[in-house]
């Protein structure tokens, strides 16, 4: 240390040595198992080193050692709060390699279930963020109430609340059960009111504002340098949303806004942005329910009575756009040889999957680009010079999910 610096330290009598402490891996407020190696000067953070890998499950290796069909069931576990998106990224990459065309109804079903999943993910973030900031009383349960409704719907269609295994290579796994679409549109109708309720409690609350405004500012350039994506990047004012900038699936047929916040990119902006995004997702859901070819599953079932659900590709009730699956799902599912990459916009950012296939029933190589991992990289810069009490406020606001970091 330079002599003048030592002098500066000793001249202020109150200054003591820096202290290194561990935060995590089992800190109750870290969502998962993240260890932060903090260098503290009194109350203030001087240096942060995130230690990742506690939840490493060799997801890529597993993909190379299991058949395509088997790996589809595992992939939801990469990001367990938004399993639809990981399945979707892999399915899209595999479809690109294989060259198979997903039927239109299948694409709409994918958008519906994944937008529902996006809302559940943001709702969970909102609820736990309340806890991170110390709102232990009842608020966390308001978002969880709506989340529960959505999870019940996702469970009814896919079979499990979080490990959906619903979006498959070639389409989606099953048609919705009777009455499902009606329940979704019921939810879509009431959801904006619920979001108003959360906002009434949080957005203008003076304590909430004090805790979040001007805290953890993520500068535009810094965010771009670190490869931060998703709501955290958009809150810093970069309009990057793959659904809009590089529309995939049927997003080009839907009218929706990508909320951009023109603020400094602080913790409060990220909150505002996610709330806006939930409203947009709701809007997307509403449009999908109107536009989906074949109408609701119940209507389609009525129509299919005429042809007795023949399942022929040229049938006007079963084939073409009204199919949900283009590739037969069985144990011997194969993907043509080749390599391909595709990315989608997950609730946390750009989720990419890179595949090399040799034409067999297992992949030769899998590579995941996980948004949480890249977003976490920006965390040390955000935490510097903030008091310990703000660590959770900032860490929570970038919405990192640890299994997605470590995979």
């Amino acid at each position, binding site marked *: 240390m330079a002599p003048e610096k030592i002098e500066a330290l000793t001249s202020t009598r109150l200054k003591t040595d820096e202290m290194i402490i561990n935060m995590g891996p089992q800190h109750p407020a870290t969502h998962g198992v993240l260890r932060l190696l903090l260098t503290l000067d009194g109350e203030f953070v001087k240096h942060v080193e995130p230690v990742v890998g506690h939840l490493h499950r060799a997801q890529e290796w597993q993909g190379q050692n299991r058949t395509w069909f088997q790996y589809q069931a595992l992939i939801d576990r990469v990001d367990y709060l938004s399993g639809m998106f990981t399945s979707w990224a892999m399915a899209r990459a595999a479809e690109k390699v294989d060259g198979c065309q997903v039927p239109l109804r299948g694409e709409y079903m994918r958008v519906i279930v994944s937008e529902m999943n996006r809302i559940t993910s943001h709702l969970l973030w909102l609820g736990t963020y309340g806890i991170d900031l110390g709102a232990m009383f009842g608020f966390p349960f308001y978002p969880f109430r709506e989340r529960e409704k959505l999870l019940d719907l996702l*469970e009814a269609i896919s079979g499990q609340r979080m490990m959906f295994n619903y979006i498959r290579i070639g389409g989606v796994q099953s048609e919705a059960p009777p009455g499902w679409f009606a329940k979704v549109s019921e939810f879509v109708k009431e959801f904006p009111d619920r979001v108003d309720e959360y906002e009434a409690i949080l957005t203008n609350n003076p304590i909430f504002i004090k805790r979040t405004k001007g805290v953890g500012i993520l500068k535009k350039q810094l965010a771009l340098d670190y490869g931060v994506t998703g709501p955290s990047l958009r809150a810093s004012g970069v309009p990057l949303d793959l659904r809009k900038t590089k529309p995939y699936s049927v997003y080009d047929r839907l009218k929706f806004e990508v909320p951009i916040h023109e603020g400094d990119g602080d913790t409060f902006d990220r909150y505002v942005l996610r709330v806006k995004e939930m409203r947009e997702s709701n809007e997307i859901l509403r449009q999908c329910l109107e536009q989906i070819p074949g109408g609701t599953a119940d209507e389609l079932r009525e129509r299919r009575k005429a042809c007795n659900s023949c399942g022929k590709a040229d049938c006007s009730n079963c084939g073409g756009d009204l199919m949900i699956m283009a590739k037969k*799902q*069985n144990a011997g599912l194969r993907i043509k040889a080749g390599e391909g990459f595709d990315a989608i916009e997950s609730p946390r950012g750009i989720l990419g999957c890179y595949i090399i296939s040799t034409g067999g029933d297992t992949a030769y190589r899998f590579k995941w680009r996980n948004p949480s991992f890249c977003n976490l990289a920006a965390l040390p810069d955000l935490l510097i010079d903030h008091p310990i009490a703000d660590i959770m406020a900032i860490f929570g606001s970038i919405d990192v999910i640890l299994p997605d970091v470590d995979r």
Partner: protein
Amino acid sequence: MFGLVGRAVESLYYVCVGLWTVAKHTGRAPITKEFPDTMPDLPGAFRGRLALAVNPETSEHLCISCRQCERVCPDKCIDITAHKSPETGKLELIDFKIDHGLCMFCGLCTEVCPTTCIINTNDFEMSDYSREALIYDLKKLTLTQDESAHYFSKKYLPIPKPKPKPAPKPAAAAAKPADGVAAPAKPAPPAAKPAEGAAAAKSAPAATDKPAGDAAATKPTAEKKADDSKDSEKEKAAPEPSAAEGKAEPDKTEG
């Protein structure tokens, strides 16, 4: 000064708005469920404990021992013991074990099953005191006729009548021509039967060690066995007592 007062009033107003929202909730019906008293209303697609269905109409076991489920399982938690019946030349199920401690309830096995035999039930309360107790055998897995009917109707799509006739009738039909036409084939089964009886007698001590249910499950199949199945019988008998020991040990330590 005035600014401060204004800000305080504004803050108070927004806090009150928030609290009013909270207060409104007290008037609403609770959404939480008292779990053990009220069971959740689970959808048919729910992936719970695995089970083997019987035909809801004829109560005949649907499994054809094709081992598709065993092959596809990512966790390798299904273990099927089957042999080729000497009388009908068809595969016969001897035992079917699923280790629910390994299973991740992905439902892939239920998707590949050609006869919709293996299904995910809505049962999720299956905690137990030892890991061995989570290994369910054929008897524990097989659903009753009523339960099968319930799940077939609840899951909508699976066909409730997956051809009850082909299984028993071709079997009987195949057996009859074999009796009538192929004369050399005829003496074989009766000859096998006494031998089988001896085999059953030999394995009887081992069988007594087994739980009563397990023995009952193996006996009907054991009657139809031929000489070549003795090996498989021995193989099966060997791991069984060890499993029984495994079961007994945790009990002892607990006691």
